[in-house]
């Protein structure tokens, strides 16, 4: 075999209006390695990979595969070069079956689709790499974890040997991440190379052989796994130390700010998602809800905010029933919502940062805009201030938010939701996809609100996050609270049992 690295990217440059997303980046990938790509939100990781996969075209720079200069103009070219990519956002056709998604666009199939053989092959491939899927299932019925597995099987099926995984673990449960990692290990043993993007440093340290850190569109250098630890990586990414694991501020709990009583809510499919659930949160308290995704967390949040009709039960804020109150009224009485889906619910992609921040028009201390009179000047000033305070990286306050990276989009949402002095905050996966700095920032912002006396309902996937922030942990299973624990890692096992559907009281008996 030749000695060339399997892939080299040289002096890649890519500018978007107002940002230099990739600034003269060079990257070398060796055969059979897991190469992690780290960097803050907006550092240019996805852009670089999109260039490699032919989705974007670089302004200049070149790509060498096995030492040979190669032009990649479209994903088709990339696929021909045995490059495969799992995008940061799913690229699946919801109404197709798993098998159909896998063979979509592949040329070596007859005119008439015969999926039988393919289904068998996918099944075998899945078993071989321990990525179980059901080839006949329609994608829209599947969980995010299963969808992620399909994305990876898609690559394996085409025989890709350079695999780009752009934040594949952001939506996975810990068990699913384990599965993915064992598949990755198997792949590199067989000689494939994997480019792995993640914001979770522990994962990066666990799986990768070498690590490149991008910062402001530049490659700060490639390091061997042995040479680094958490701290050096953070410093490289952010350019400074990030204070972590600070003490939670002690706050004397105030009166009950929000109370949910015997709430029952249905999901989109018409099945019961929240089942006779009750909880209450005091002012200055954070209640963390732990549970496997899809156990009613989303529906609970939407019901409280008023996006989803409730079947039975009651929701009270400061003693007042919210039933029949419009969302607007709820917002005015101090309810804030940080939704999981920041693209479709939380923001208007085509509006500017400023209009997204002022969408709710509830920031106190400012003159209110009316239908006839928009306080543009004052809005500009306030937006600039918030951009500074929340360190949102955007070319200007007039930039459409669709052009922001995931992390910065989330900061825009936070800026809006937290600057209205909320008394109750529903935070659903508030740090999903955020880099360490931003994550720490969100934690500080939420703890700050807690200090000011807000009641916060935290729905998060990561136990780490729940322990880090909450005062109490409620474990949810099939829409019911199985029990409460203190926010301490020593309760992890107990929480695990409850997440699987065992009630707190029956754990004691055993």
């Amino acid at each position, binding site marked *: 075999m030749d000695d060339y690295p399997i892939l080299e990217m040289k002096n890649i440059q890519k500018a*978007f209006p107002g940002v230099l997303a990739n600034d003269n980046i060079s990257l070398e990938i060796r055969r059979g390695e897991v190469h992690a790509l780290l960097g803050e939100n907006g550092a240019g990781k996805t852009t670089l990979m999109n260039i490699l996969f032919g989705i974007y075209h670089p302004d200049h720079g070149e790509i060498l595969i096995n030492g040979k200069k190669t032009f990649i103009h479209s994903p088709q070219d*990339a696929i021909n070069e045995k490059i495969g990519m799992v995008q940061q*956002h799913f690229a699946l*056709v*919801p*109404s197709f079956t798993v098998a159909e*998604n896998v063979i979509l*666009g592949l040329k070596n199939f007859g*005119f008439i689709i015969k999926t039988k053989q393919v289904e068998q092959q996918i099944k075998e491939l899945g078993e071989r790499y321990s990525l179980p899927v059901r080839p006949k299932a329609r994608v829209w019925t599947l969980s995010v974890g299963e969808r992620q597995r399909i994305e990876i099987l898609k690559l394996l099926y085409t025989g890709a040997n350079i695999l780009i995984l752009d934040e594949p673990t952001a939506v996975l449960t810990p068990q699913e991440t384990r599965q993915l990692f064992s598949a990755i290990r198997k792949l590199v043993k067989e000689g494939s190379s994997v480019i792995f993007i993640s914001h979770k440093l522990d994962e990066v340290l666990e799986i990768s052989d070498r690590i490149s850190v991008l910062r402001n569109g530049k490659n700060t250098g490639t390091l061997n796994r042995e040479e680094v630890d958490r701290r050096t990586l953070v410093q490289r990414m952010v350019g400074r130390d990030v204070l972590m694991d600070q003490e939670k501020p002690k706050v004397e709990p105030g009166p009950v700010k929000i109370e949910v009583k015997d709430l029952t809510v249905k999901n989109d499919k018409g099945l019961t998602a929240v089942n006779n659930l009750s909880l209450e949160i005091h002012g200055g308290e954070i209640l963390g809800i732990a549970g496997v995704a899809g156990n009613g967390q989303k529906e609970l949040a939407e019901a409280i905010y008023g996006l989803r009709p409730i079947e039975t039960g009651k929701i009270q804020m400061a003693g007042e029933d919210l039933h029949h109150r419009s969302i607007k009224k709820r917002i005015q009485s101090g309810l804030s919502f940080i939704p999981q889906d920041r693209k479709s619910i939380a923001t208007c992609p085509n509006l500017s940062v400023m209009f997204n921040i002022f969408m709710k028009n509830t920031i106190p201390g400012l003159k209110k805009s009316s239908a006839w009179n928009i306080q543009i000047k004052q809005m500009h000033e306030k937006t600039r201030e918030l951009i500074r305070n929340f360190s949102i990286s955007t070319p200007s306050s007039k930039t459409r938010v669709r052009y922001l990276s995931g992390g910065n989009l989330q900061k825009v949402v936070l800026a809006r939701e937290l600057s209205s002095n909320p008394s109750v905050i529903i935070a659903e996966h508030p740090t999903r996809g955020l880099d360490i700095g931003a994550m720490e920032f969100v934690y500080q912002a939420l703890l700050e609100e807690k200090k000011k006396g807000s009641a916060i309902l935290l729905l998060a996937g990561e136990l780490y996050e729940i322990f880090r922030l909450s005062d109490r942990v409620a474990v949810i299973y099939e829409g019911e609270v199985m029990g409460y624990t203190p926010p301490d890692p020593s309760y992890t096992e107990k929480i695990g049992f409850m997440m699987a559907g065992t009630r707190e009281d029956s754990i004691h008996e055993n």
Partner: protein
Amino acid sequence: MNDALSFIVATLHATVRAGTPLLFAVLGTIFTERSGIMNLGLEGIMLIGAIGGFVVSYNTSNLLLAILVAMIAGAILGLVHAFFTVTLKINQIVSGLAITMLGSGISGLWGKDYIGVVAERFETISIPLLSDIPVIGRILFQHDLLVYISLLAVPLMWFFIYKTRGGMTLRAVGEAPEAADARGINVFFIRYLYTIIGGSITAIGGAYLSLAYNSMWIENMTAGRGWIAIALVLFATWDPYKALLGAYLFGGITALGLRMQAVGTHIPPDFLKMLPYLLTIVVLFFTSTDTLKRKVGAPATLGVPYSREDRT
């Protein structure tokens, strides 16, 4: 055969004839919209097909050549629509309306010298044996060539869309273009292709009016059929079989109106003529796009231009 039965049989026979131009237009547009391009230019495309076909038929008496020219004319308008919407990313509704105006303008101009003349038309071909079946034979198997073609097209198209690789690509492009793109499918090419094919099939519907339903050219002879077809595409939820149902339902209303007028009822004729349009409103009311789009499998990106570097 008693009177009532013969009235019913004659009405059903006329239903098929009146439904055929709609069926072509709906089938063509199902292709276009499956790829994610909304086309409101049907009326214009049908008109251009009608006049294009008629001119050739009048001058050469060659009906197959006439259909071919009609299809080319429709394909050209489809190409224009694709250029506007795929390449220039102009609002698809606006482009569609422009196509309608363009089509009806050109057809009016082109057809000025052909008003009042008669040309060759598709003759009835009775299918041996099948046409002898009582009742059914008369209703379904005593028609012209185009009717048979449209009837064959329905299952073929269904098979193509749901069972072949080409159909899979088409559906993927309409439903999740970024997924298709990531798999190396050329989204722009597919959208061009099916907007052009859709235009040419729609134009056959127009040609049917001037070469089979009638054998002459009348200005604006589509009389709103293009708009009805747009509503029918929604009604059919982009499914060829339901398109057949919808087209014949409307054909039936039209035929019934005409028949009733012929036998002389007390219902005012203007009301009978109005029926198809009234039904269109009812159909639109019950199948508003929003509810349809939520169903899985509908072209989710209908009306939305695709661009790689634009984040969504």
